[in-house]
């Protein structure tokens, strides 16, 4: 196959007319007929702070990896609006199934971001109790969590926690995944299960344009949000760098789910400003000009511009947020360095909830083996 026949036509990285946008990259409000949301200064200030703090934490984590304190880090740089806008749309009883880059979602659920560090430092495979904030552990196998979310939503449905009209009871589930994950069979199976059983689930695709080195055009020939039609539920594309629009679109989808009207696919059109992970070198596959184009669409800058231009925030506010961010960064570093490796014996813990003979025998053998060293002897 030659190059021209093997490649699908490139999808445009431009914001197309189908895309819901309420705040332009320049920070101008632009009303949308489908979403009556107007900028609320209090909320925008909150989200601005959220995004700045998450970005600062993320930056510190990248530095920590560079200095050998983390084994790896998956940066959320550039995707803050998609994550905070959707995360802040969730009710306390809702449940989120994130991918491994959703630090802004984790923050929005009220979790301490330092709880993310153990899995990237290698002191744990998880790091938090998912039931405390209704945030599932980060799932590394691409797209696998979307099926867990569909099943969880089937459970919500069976609990009768859908369509009661009680805002404290009706529950929605949201699952996050990327443009690369959209190619995984599990994601299609999850969409089909969700549709067939009409479960209260929002599929939130952060289309950050790149699956490590592979561009959108290698994952799909149609805009991802249109896939929903084939599964029988609505799909919508939102400017993923517009926190106001993301929040409006996600709230509408969650309300729909809680009311028992079934799933929605949201494609948040965004951009991974950093590398895939700290092990990646994006200069091998994408141009600086493209990155620059997206820098002009920065999710934080447009909120800052809106707040400043309309007199909703002054320099003191921005300085205060920056000072808080510095503290978040310093604390991330401090907490990271304080994370000690677990005792080797603990690697046998929690494989099962109930006794398992094979594991028990190996654990006992290992304890004896370790004792030989503790005695100071040479084996």
């Amino acid at each position, binding site marked *: 196959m030659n190059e021209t026949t093997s490649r699908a036509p490139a999808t445009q990285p431009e914001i197309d007319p189908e895309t819901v946008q309420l705040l332009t990259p320049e920070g101008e409000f632009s009303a949308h007929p489908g979403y009556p949301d107007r900028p609320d200064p209090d909320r925008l200030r909150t989200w601005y702070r959220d995004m700045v703090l998450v970005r600062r934490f993320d930056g510190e984590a990248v530095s920590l990896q560079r200095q050998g304190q983390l084994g790896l880090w998956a940066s959320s740089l550039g995707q803050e609006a998609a994550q905070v806008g959707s995360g802040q749309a969730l009710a306390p009883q809702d449940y989120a199934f994130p991918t491994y880059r959703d630090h802004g979602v984790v923050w929005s659920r009220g979790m301490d971001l330092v709880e993310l560090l153990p899995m990237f430092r290698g002191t744990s495979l998880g790091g938090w109790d998912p039931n405390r904030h209704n945030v599932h*552990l980060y799932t590394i196998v691409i797209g*696998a969590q979307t099926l867990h979310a569909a*099943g969880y939503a089937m459970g919500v449905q069976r609990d009768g926690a859908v369509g009661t009209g009680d805002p404290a009871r009706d529950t929605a589930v949201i699952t996050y995944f990327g443009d690369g994950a959209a190619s995984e069979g*599990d994601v299609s199976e999850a969409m*089909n299960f969700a549709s067939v059983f009409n479960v209260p689930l929002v599929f939130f695709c952060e289309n950050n344009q790149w699956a490590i080195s592979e561009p959108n055009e290698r994952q799909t020939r149609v805009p991802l949000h249109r896939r929903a039609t084939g599964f029988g539920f609505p799909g919508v594309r939102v400017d993923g760098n517009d926190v106001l629009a993301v929040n409006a679109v996600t709230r509408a989808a969650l309300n729909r789910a809680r009311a028992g009207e079934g799933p929605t696919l949201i494609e948040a059109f965004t951009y991974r400003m950093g590398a895939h992970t700290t092990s990646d070198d994006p200069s091998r596959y994408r141009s600086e000009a493209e990155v620059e184009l997206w820098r002009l669409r920065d999710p934080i800058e447009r909120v800052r511009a809106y707040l400043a231009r309309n007199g909703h925030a002054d320099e003191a506010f921005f300085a205060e947020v920056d000072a808080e961010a510095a503290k978040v960064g310093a604390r991330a570093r401090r907490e990271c360095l304080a994370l000690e490796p677990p005792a080797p014996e603990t690697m046998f813990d*929690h*494989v*099962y909830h109930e006794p398992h003979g094979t594991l028990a025998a190996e654990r006992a053998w290992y304890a004896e083996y370790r004792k030989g060293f503790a005695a100071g002897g040479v084996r």
Partner: protein
Amino acid sequence: MAEPTSKQISKQISKQISKVSMAAAINTGLRRAMDADPRVIVMGEDVGTLGGVFRVTDGLRKDYGDDRVIDTPLAESGIIGTAIGLALRGYRPVCEIQFDGFIFPATNQIITQLARHAYRSEGALRLPVVIRVPFGGGIGAVEHHSESPEGYFAHTPGLRVVSCASPQDAYWMIQQAIRSDDPVLVFEPKRRYWDKAELDEDAEAPPLHAARVVRPGEHLTVAAYGPMVRTAMEAAEIAAGEGTSLEVLDLRSLSPLDLETVVGSVRRTGRLVVVHEAVTSFGPGAEIAALVTEHCFHHLEAPVLRVGGFAIPYPPSKVEHDYLPDADRVLEAVDRALAY
């Protein structure tokens, strides 16, 4: 053994003790579990209206409703992946994988997700998911309907793997598996689904992972599980006629393996033949042979021998009975072991 007495008793209380097929015994076990716990749900392809292609879930949908007996889309990864989600919400899903050879689309969810949630959450999460797998050959089926994939899962930490050999065991095992807070794969010998035997619903069950001596003997131990237990018993019967006393073990569980019972038997007999339908190479028998060699080295009179599937894909059904271990193949290994 007070055989006549127990038979007399069983006649007296025929309400509890009757001859049933393994399929019916599993059905009864599922009903007991669903009665005991409203969070138990059954899901899979054709398990509802049809009652499963083997009718193991016959009537459950009618009696427990659509919400608890779910005909799923035809997607094995989806079945296990959504079962994980249901378990995270507090349910206890019992998934049916229609045929052994169709479990592979679900292996990613089973191995990378189901097996690891307890571990990666440091005990915060429980996934009491049961996966029922009709397995093994001998039914004259087309390709992918006669496989024995249990070794892949016994090799995976975080899973429990058991296999039933009789209606009584099947009845106990399915309920115990459902009660377990860990994920359990139950391998059901599909060619024995219609074998009938007595089922005592009130008898006390042995532990889920305990092996059982099904026929005591002196000269050599034959260890089997699932469909091969009957085959091993047939071999023992023939051997007895020739003056050789075989002890037959039903392993019942591969993960964990009841090593103590195996070792206890081999230390008495000094010889072991392991029988399974699964491919011999790198199969469960290899693990058992290694463990027995380590733990019974000075008691062994012969190397541990394995009788199992050849290192070929499961062959066309017209030659499957040449492929599958039978009493003759078991006895050939017995003769070799006794010749040492």
